[in-house]
């Protein structure tokens, strides 16, 4: 088992014929992901490395089972692509694109949330958006819908990983792999201010997953998602959680690469996040390798 995606997940790639889309389609298939089709408006009817290309998500969905879509569309059209997948009834939408205007994301996220409620109230699967500006998600040894390096996630482990950062996700995944712990599912939620799925949305899935023993949360400065996660953990979780916060030495008021990584006034400070995790009894690693020590410690309890 794993969360959100597994070896039976059927995936379409929106923007498959672009450079990024093509490269990552190849890597995802090498990993073992069941990519069934691509979508590029205007290129319907063509094929790409043996996969059919459709003009729309709806067309792809009419011809294939589709459980998830991954979007590689430039920023100006990214939110629209999210809504196309969501309205076509794709239950899991992953937006990789970085640099989408925040107002576009606000509108898209609100609409996705509404479609999700509608779908669930009618007994449907709901709609979940992951990202944007994220590396995607991966269930080790089963299915990758994202852009992370394949080698780190070849074998299944029992640690769930959630992260706002791409590269730190790989780093932590690698360390867990080397320590013989490995990852069950890894979810990169993205570094933008407004994203579809937050830490607190993913935590309950791991809590319910019989194949996940502990969870690592990799946060960073900016916003209050870590505080919300700590609150959720404190009130709802039995499984142990270990946290890491990146950018602890960054000055206030400066945007650290990610659009969301900025301390504004007293919101988003590392102090606030550390205090929240402390209050929830979540140990926070000072360095990446310390994550492993802490995971081992909480597992032995």
């Amino acid at each position, binding site marked *: 088992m794993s969360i959100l995606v597994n070896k039976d997940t059927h995936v379409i790639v929106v923007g498959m014929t672009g450079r990024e889309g093509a490269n990552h389609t190849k890597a995802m298939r090498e990993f073992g992901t069941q990519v069934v089709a691509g979508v590029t408006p205007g290129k319907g009817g063509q094929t790409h490395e043996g996969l059919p290309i459709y003009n729309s998500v709806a067309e792809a969905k009419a011809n294939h089972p589709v459980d998830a879509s991954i979007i590689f569309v430039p*920023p*100006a059209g990214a939110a629209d692509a999210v809504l196309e997948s969501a309205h076509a009834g794709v239950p899991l939408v992953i937006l990789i694109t970085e*640099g*989408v*205007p*925040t*107002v*576009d994301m*606000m*509108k898209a*996220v*609100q*609409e996705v*949330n509404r479609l999700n409620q509608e779908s669930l109230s009618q007994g449907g699967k709901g709609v979940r958006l992951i990202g944007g500006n994220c590396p995607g998600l991966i269930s080790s040894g089963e299915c990758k819908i994202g*852009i*992370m*390096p394949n080698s780190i996630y070849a074998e299944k482990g029992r640690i769930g990983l959630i*992260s*706002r*950062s*791409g*590269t*730190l*996700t*790989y*780093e932590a995944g*690698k360390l867990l792999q080397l320590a013989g712990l490995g990852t069950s599912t890894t979810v990169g939620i993205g*570094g933008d*201010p*407004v*994203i579809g799925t937050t830490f607190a949305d993913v935590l309950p899935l791991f809590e319910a997953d019989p194949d996940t023993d502990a969870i690592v949360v*990799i946060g*960073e*400065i900016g*916003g*209050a*998602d870590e505080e*919300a996660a700590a609150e959720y953990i404190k009130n709802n979780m039995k499984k142990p959680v270990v946290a890491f916060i*990146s*950018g*602890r*030495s*960054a*000055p206030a008021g*400066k*945007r*650290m*690469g*990610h*659009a*969301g*990584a900025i301390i*504004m*006034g*007293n919101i988003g400070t590392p102090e606030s996040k550390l205090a929240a995790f402390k209050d929830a009894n979540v140990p926070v690693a*000072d*360095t*990446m*390798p310390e994550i492993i020590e802490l995971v081992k410690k909480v597992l032995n309890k």
Partner: protein
Amino acid sequence: MKLHEYQGKELLRQFGVNVQDGKVAYTPDEVRTIAREYGQPVVVKAQVHVGGRGKAGGVRFSPTIDKAHENAEKILGMDIKGLTVNKVLVTKAVDIDAGVEYYVGMIVDRNVQSFTLMASAEGGVEIEEVAAATPEKIIRHRVDPVTGLRPYEAREVAIKAGFKGNLNKIADMMVKMSKAALERDAVLVEINPLFIDADGTPLALDTKFEIDDNAMYRHKDLLSWRETEAEHPLEIEAAKYGFAYVKLDDGNVGVLGNGAGIVMTSLDVVNRAGAKPANFLDIGGGAKAEIVYNAVKLVSKDSDVKAIFINIFGGITRADEVAKGVIQALNEGILTKPVRMRIAGTAETEAKALLAEVNSPLIQMYPDMFQAAEAAAQDANNAGEKK
């Protein structure tokens, strides 16, 4: 992109917000002309991209034309937190005692995945101060990003905030501010103080307006407003390469890596190693040798930098491409400071082989980020001591 007060006011005016009249001037004589034209007391206000203008003496009430000229002479050329004032906004003065000052603003709020409207009867002071001292005096309301703020919502917020005055006019101003925020991709917009005159009519006396950099492609008409004076020269150069680069104060170790998270962590690691990072530089995913070369070139130009720490975790980025970029900088004589790097992952072996061939003491590779950061910190701190 941060806007000046006069630019923010111009945008709000375009959306129909009642904004205090004012004109921009670059010389004391221009200020005199504007003051004469207005024929009433004016306020001369420094236009710089930093907060705390008032406290620094950059905002001055001028009851007469001569006083306006005199104040302009004081303010123009003045240094506020390292920035030179080269223009002022001259506005008609308002008799504050004849009315009340409120606060309204909108900010991107990730917790509600939209804008939050904030309103407070405690106007004319920094909202952060109100938030810290009396948070209950700030009314917060999520704005629907599709419909924008509707008049009835604005009235409700105004009532809750305890605003006195013409309720419909105040609500109308808030609705127009919301329209400006949504259509102009604001990250932050504030009207503070929002002045309510004796008749109950609202007037925007000062504004803050910041636009989402990701949305600038659809606000090309505002590109000419971009000013680089407040930015570090290296930040301007970095923007040309498309790097996410931030110059940091009092640092001695140049830091570059692939990915915002890894670079943020690299800053932390340099700090722990007893040195100070001089910059944040994310070369992005999948960087080729040329990009790495440009990044090394940029960081080397920084005279604060005594050693460079490169932290790469290769996923899409190939370690050998990173090595090639660094070697090119070395061969061209650009690289004169020690580079301590950790490159792990894809094509690590090839990278090691390339560096072994060059065999320069300036470039050393380490098995993990701590050792590399410690070596860079030591080099940088030693270089500082030699002086």
